[in-house]
């Protein structure tokens, strides 16, 4: 299937979401769509999926010109959109999900389960994966769920699959599997539009690229003609500032945060490390390494079997989150929408939330005082807002994340636990978050980052702790950091050798 966008414009009232976008997606190709958040990728994909009509312009699909599409039409043409938040019903079985809303029946009412199950087997066989269609979807891991979505697209003779950030929740091995399947599909003549922020992946899997910026079309071309730096430049519209080398600075030897023998079965055991003043430690690993649980435990949000923390040499009470906060530890949780942003509240209240708990003695709140505190922190965090009383959801992902940082600045925290802090944030904003981390260490604050992205580890950390199945497998200093070793220890390859012996 060949899809050509021709002079697409889309306005939402005064906002120009897309301006004069024209490019072509060829037959049997994997086409990378690049752009920061707000560049217009989703709008364009929604136009292709028939969810939105363009303000002007045409879409030409296999030589037929369309002024606009509707969702049914898009489906019939074989265009399928796999959203980042997967669209599966956890409580139904795999085959039921595959056939949802298109069930095959016998005698009108009676579901023809055997037929559907058999067909599902066939599809999975064609994809070269082994998933039992009779399992409940909740029993599957994230990759398998993703594959079920892809299977659904194939089942209904999709010719073009749009994938929005499909790898965010996948481990590296799973990503490789997904890519293998995508290549197989390409062989079978199915095209794919691949949306992602992750450069290495785009370069691995995609043939062609198209870059959008601020709603405008920037460039299309072959991935083999460009490198990552060039792609990032196209994306951001300026060359990326060289990251400051924080690691040249001599660290104070003063230990501020000592974790001793942290154990919480079955997630992690016997975790000990020491964080120095001004130091950044990253903690990484693969799915099932117990990182997520460890980050919660460090903040007092999860009960431990045993272990303690020494903060500035004194034992820290982990009995409630409030006590941990008060002793100067701040937390930026993973999964911003679910765990850190309070969506019905304005920006100001979102920032002040921690302060109310730990510092603000008076039960009555003064607007003036809140605003004053906010503007002081705004200078540090560089949050871009119209008015601090606007809704938090009016901000971009990066700015929302800065709001969460500002929470802890108000408390003057000196140890920051960041759990996947740049999740779903575009390249430009990522650098701003890193800059915030550098500024923190300059001021002698210490940071623990939980992340699975190697560039992030490399750019920020003095040391990297690699976890494997709930234990510290290896600690690597910055000078010796490289992606291969991190992968080697994350997969526990060193331990497999031991086991063999």
């Amino acid at each position, binding site marked *: 299937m060949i899809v050509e966008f021709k002079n697409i414009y889309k306005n939402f009232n005064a906002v120009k979401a897309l301006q004069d976008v024209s490019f072509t997606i060829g037959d049997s190709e994997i086409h990378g769509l690049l752009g920061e958040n707000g560049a217009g990728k989703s709008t364009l994909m929604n136009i292709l999926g028939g969810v939105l009509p363009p303000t002007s312009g045409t879409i030409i699909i296999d030589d037929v010109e369309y002024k606009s599409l509707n969702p049914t039409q898009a489906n019939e043409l074989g265009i399928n959109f796999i959203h980042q938040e997967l669209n599966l019903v956890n409580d139904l079985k795999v085959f039921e999900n595959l056939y949802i809303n298109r069930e095959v029946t016998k005698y009108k009412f009676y579901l023809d389960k055997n037929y559907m199950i058999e067909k599902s087997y066939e599809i999975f066989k064609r994809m070269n994966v082994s998933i039992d269609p009779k399992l409940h979807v909740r029993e599957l891991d994230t990759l398998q769920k993703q594959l079920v979505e892809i299977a659904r697209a194939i089942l209904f003779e999709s010719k073009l699959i749009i994938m929005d950030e499909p790898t965010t929740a996948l481990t590296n091995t799973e990503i490789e599997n997904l890519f293998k399947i995508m290549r197989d599909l390409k062989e079978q003549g199915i095209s794919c539009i691949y949306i992602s922020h992750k450069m290495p992946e785009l370069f691995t899997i995609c043939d062609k690229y198209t870059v959008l910026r601020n709603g405008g079309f920037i460039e299309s071309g072959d991935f083999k003609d460009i490198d990552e730096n060039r792609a990032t430049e196209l994306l951001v519209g300026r060359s990326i500032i060289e990251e400051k080398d924080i690691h040249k600075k001599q660290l104070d030897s003063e230990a501020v945060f000592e974790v001793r023998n942290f154990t919480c079965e079955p997630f992690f055991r016997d975790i000990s490390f020491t964080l120095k003043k001004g130091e950044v430690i990253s903690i990484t690993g693969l799915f099932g390494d117990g990182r997520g649980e460890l980050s919660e435990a460090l903040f007092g949000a999860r009960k431990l079997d045993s272990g303690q923390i020494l903060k500035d040499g004194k034992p820290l009470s982990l009995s409630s989150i409030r006590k941990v906060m008060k002793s100067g530890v701040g937390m930026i949780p993973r999964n911003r929408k679910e765990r850190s942003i309070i969506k019905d509240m304005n920006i100001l209240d979102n920032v002040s939330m921690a302060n109310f*708990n730990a510092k603000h003695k008076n039960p009555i709140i003064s607007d003036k005082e809140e605003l004053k505190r906010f503007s002081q922190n705004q200078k540090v965090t560089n949050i871009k807002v119209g008015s601090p009383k606007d809704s938090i959801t009016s901000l971009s992902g990066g700015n929302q994340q800065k709001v969460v940082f500002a929470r802890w600045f108000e408390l003057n925290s000196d140890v920051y636990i960041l759990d996947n802090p740049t999740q779903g944030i575009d390249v430009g904003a990522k650098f701003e978050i890193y800059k915030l981390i550098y500024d923190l260490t300059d001021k002698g604050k210490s940071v623990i980052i939980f992340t699975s992205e190697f560039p992030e580890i490399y750019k920020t950390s003095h040391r990297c702790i690699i976890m494997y199945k709930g234990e510290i497998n290896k600690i690597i200093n910055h000078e010796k950091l490289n992606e291969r070793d991190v992968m080697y220890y994350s997969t526990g390859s060193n331990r497999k050798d031991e086991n063999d012996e």
Partner: protein
Amino acid sequence: MSKLKSMLKSINKENIKKFYIEKGKPVLKNLVINHNYVISLVLLLVLGQIASSNFLSFGSLVNLMKSSVIIGIIALGMSLVILSGNIDLSVGSLLALTAANTALVYNSSESIIVSLFFALIFGAFLGSINGIFVGKAKVAAFIVTLATMAAYRSLTVQQGQGGPIIITQDAYYGKLREIGYGKFLEIPYIVWIFVLVTLLIIFIMSKTKFGRYVYAVGSNEKAAKLSGINVDRIKVYIFSLTGLLTGLAAFLYVSRFGSVDTATAGKSFELDAIAAVAIGGTSMAGGKGFVQGTFFGIIVIYAIDAVLTSFRVPSFVNDLIKGILILGAVLMQKVLNAKRQAE
């Protein structure tokens, strides 16, 4: 006095303009979109006036307010519960049990102060039982309060052996009746109480830490917890406060009626209270809404009753029409909310 003077001084062109255009948005438009229950109320009042010419007289407006008081005070508590993402079905039974025991306390003590405090504390205690099950034991609020609704009612009926609990004539006409029927500046005490309590709750919800916590818990419990809020304890407080307010309503109930029919007192009050919160624009999912809305919401519900009476609608279909109007009001809000989002 000096405060008043400075207030008068501040009324100039600039400030009047400011009043009409807040944050660049016209106040009237803001009213239509954010506080549209006011429109429902105005529409009903106009309808009422069409039906009977003295509908908008001072007397009948006061009557309208007066009939809203008891469920209104309960609905204020219900707002908090719903804003925090929970529900309380037990308020009707809680009112009955508190009222029955308050009557007994008054019979033996003949002291208004003692029985008022008893009502407040007993109500808060019954509410805290809900709160502990919801907050600490983490059982769904719907289930907990469904259970206590049945349990509290059963206790009440047992106490009255199925019949009413009556305050002895002499004691009632002595002082207690004065609270239910007395007036200050031509407006009944109970209406004053309702307005003051509403203002207090509005203050708590908009200007205090506790208010922020209630919104935060209702909007995103996980995030609230990770910013250090003791979510479990906040829930216990919310249900206790609702119990306390229902206790106050129970005291006013006793002072107005002088007796408590254990089987029917407070029956289906929870439904009117929830309806008032819904009409007032509070999201049933929690996190979004205003207590002011509930105040007008309950008046809207009683205005519907009054308008239907004025139109001489047979009382059997009253609830049908009420149901339709409530759905209509909430639908209107949905449409307006969608519009607000689009802007």
